[in-house]
């Protein structure tokens, strides 16, 4: 297995790990969720009303009009911004320029809900430096990846037998669009993933609390007779559930890679709900994923790429 290049997460992109998060805490409104201290929640708007929230580098403004909902999505240059602002009504003019998206209704629903969701592709992350796991040892790395913001409305369904309005996800906006990357043994075989340029950390305390990023604990257990060098790690985000803990930090389920004695690698999701926290989102993909990932991961461990 080749040695990982040392330029992952270059210094121009990194922030000091001990930087204190600056989080705005607006007064709680009647429609806001108690466990979402930063940017999650619901806002009820009259026709013509606007609401805004911020999550890291992303600022989203929505406007309810008589016949449509309009959404403006702006992303700042600082991918590691720790700012956050709860979704709340504002008394301002709509942003200049055309909306990012519009959704038309015969009669617009009045309440919009913002919830986080995980990436729709796996996320690839590199350890901060070359990491070897001796035989019989196990190691947990904490990977931080941006989340998406799902915008939901409760839509009346004109179907016969439907019981009241049902929530519909209008769109999902990335709080920060990660770079694409390719994960596979060759340029002809593999899958498109997102690359996270922050290095994986062995200590969760080293990860600053960023409201727009979720932390995935990835554990690698080496049961083989020889040391295993970790070059990159795939966090299978579509198969993980999302939680929030009491501090407002977003967590996903854990992932356990086990490298067997014959170099076969198995992978499984380890459900991990933080104490006192809340489950925010179910996995996007509820299918079994172990075999596919296992095959790819095993080949990468053996250095066939």
């Amino acid at each position, binding site marked *: 297995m080749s040695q990982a290049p040392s330029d992952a997460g270059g210094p121009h992109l990194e922030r000091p790990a001990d930087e204190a998060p600056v989080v705005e805490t607006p007064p709680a409104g009647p429609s806001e969720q108690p466990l979402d201290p930063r940017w999650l929640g619901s806002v009820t708007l009259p026709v013509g009303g606007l609401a805004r929230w911020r999550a890291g580098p992303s600022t989203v403004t929505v406007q309810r009009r008589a016949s449509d909902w309009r959404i403006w999505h702006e992303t700042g240059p600082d991918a590691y911004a720790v700012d956050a602002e709860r979704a709340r009504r504002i008394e301002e003019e709509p942003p200049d320029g055309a909306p990012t998206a519009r959704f038309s209704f015969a009669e617009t629903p009045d309440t919009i809900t913002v919830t986080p969701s995980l990436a729709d592709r796996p996320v*690839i992350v590199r350890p901060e430096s070359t990491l070897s796991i001796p035989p019989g040892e196990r190691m947990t790395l904490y990977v931080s990846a941006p989340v998406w913001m799902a915008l939901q409305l409760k839509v009346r369904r004109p179907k016969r037998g439907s019981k009241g309005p049902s929530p519909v996800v209008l769109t999902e906006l990335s709080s920060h669009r*990660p770079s*694409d990357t390719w994960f596979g043994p060759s*340029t*002809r075989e593999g899958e498109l993933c997102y*690359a996270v340029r922050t290095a994986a950390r062995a200590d969760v305390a080293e990860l600053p609390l960023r409201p727009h990023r979720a932390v995935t604990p990835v554990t690698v257990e080496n049961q083989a007779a020889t040391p295993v060098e970790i070059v990159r790690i795939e966090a299978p985000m579509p198969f993980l559930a999302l939680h929030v803990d009491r501090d407002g930090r977003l967590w996903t389920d854990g992932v356990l890679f086990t490298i067997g004695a014959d170099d076969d690698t198995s992978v499984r999701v380890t459900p991990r709900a933080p104490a006192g926290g809340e489950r925010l989102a179910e996995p996007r993909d509820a299918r079994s994923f172990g075999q596919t990932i296992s095959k790819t991961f095993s080949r990468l461990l053996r250095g066939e790429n």
Partner: protein
Amino acid sequence: MTADAIPESFAFLSALADPSFWWSVARAALYLVIGVIVARMVRFGVQRSLTHLEAGQRMLLTRIAGYTVLTLFLISALRQFGFDFAVLLGAAGIVTVAVGFASQTSASNLISGLFLVLERAVRPGEIVTVGGRTGEVVSVDLLSTKLRTFDNLHVRIPNETMVTSEIVTLNRHPIRRFDLNVGVAYDSDLGVVQKTLLEVAARNPLCLDEPAPLLISQGFGASSIDYLLAVWAKSENWLTLRNTITREVKEAFDAAGIEIPFPQRTLQPGATPLAVQLVAPATGGSSSPDGGAGTTGADGAEAAPLAGEGTPSASGARRA
């Protein structure tokens, strides 16, 4: 017509009255009916068993299997009437040669089409470049392959041409590389240039982290120091990456004060300096002896005419 000929002309009527003839007809019809049923079953079976193949290949093999079975049953049916296929095959050989000469091009295209389908050289939906034309493959038929170019032209390429031409498929693989050639001025800080280019690649979300962007020095050019920035993208995003990264490199170079130079040429005179002399503009009323430049201006400034090649001038500015 003689009286004896009439019974001979209608001799076949007596055959119709023969029960064995009708028995043969019944058996032939039975063979045909069974043949049609068996052929359908074979086609169904082949189609079901070849699910791993593409639609075009499956259709081709299904048809070949079906027609083969049907032909065998047809031959068996005709044998009930006493057809001698040895004679027919002999005649067929001669006919095949004649038809083969007459339809040489079509036959060549047909066979090429079979190879194209079986080899899976191109597939509908792929973007290919054949003979300088780039477009999306609409269909691969037995005689020709149809392309739709990006300016919405319909191009029919004979399969023989497809087989003998170089075909470049642009989106067969899931990811693709874009090579950006860029030259920087000789007075640029090359460390800053390299860092800037790699940062641009790292910032563009469509540029893949892996395979990692590649920066190759192309050497000293006539007017610039040349670099090749090779970045990867998903095939669908290739064009967008090509457009965005070119703009981003220009903007990053502008921000960093890195110049992308125009072609430059430094002129050096030979052993004897080339004399160039400033000449006052001509005004009306007076003219120089040679009727051209080098006149005495209204302000009284006087300048000599341009010195000839290799002739030193008495005064004036010299430029190399």
